[in-house]
């Protein structure tokens, strides 16, 4: 079975909330809309790898393969991602897959933000004086350098 999912950016999801709840049938296959934070192709590739997929990238698309399910991610002119899943999947499983990818993407964003902050803080007169993890959240204490 094949399922297509439009990945609506969360920032737009409130406006497109009625779309987010819709499942339509187009040209004989299901099209769903899911609110997501996914935007960056590199982070998407890393997130897909985290979910156990083998990933290939080509011009304008990212192809992920798991056992029994293939997914092709494409971005339109407005930068909206869509994913077309084929293989041993139905609508519910497809949505579960996208939810898992979105969660993995969030963890990639966390890692990227953390690395960026640590790399740039010294030049901004800030010293990372502690880093702690509580559950899934990471907290940094940045101390303002004297004279900064």
């Amino acid at each position: 079975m094949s399922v297509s999912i439009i990945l609506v950016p969360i920032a737009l999801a409130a406006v497109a909330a009625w779309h987010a709840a819709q499942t339509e049938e187009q040209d004989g296959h299901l099209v769903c809309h899911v609110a997501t934070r996914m935007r960056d192709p590199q982070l998407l590739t890393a997130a897909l790898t985290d979910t156990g997929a083998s990933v290939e990238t080509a011009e304008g698309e990212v192809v992920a393969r798991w056992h029994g399910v293939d997914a092709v991610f494409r971005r339109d002119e407005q930068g909206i991602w869509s994913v077309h899943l084929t293989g041993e999947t139905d609508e519910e499983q497809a949505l579960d897959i996208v939810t898992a990818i979105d969660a993995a993407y969030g963890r990639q964003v966390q890692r990227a933000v953390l690395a960026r902050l640590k790399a740039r803080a010294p030049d901004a007169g800030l010293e990372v004086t502690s880093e702690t993890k509580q559950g899934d959240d990471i907290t940094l204490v940045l101390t303002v350098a004297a004279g900064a």
Partner: protein
Amino acid sequence: MGEQHIVVTITVDGSVTAETKNIHGGKCLDYIGLLEQLLEAQTTASAYTSDYKRVEDALTSPQEVRSDLHEQP
């Protein structure tokens, strides 16, 4: 005045919350812009914490700011 800190929490979905500590006067607001630059993010909400009413002397009113940031699209 003790050490000045910014406590930055990054959640598992990449959202960032930042809170200044011991940064007095209007200077705390400068750190919102700095954090936006460092994180390439946009502030979605900010508010003074309950410490903003603490007054060290007649000339300065300490203000601490908590900001929530999200990455820019």
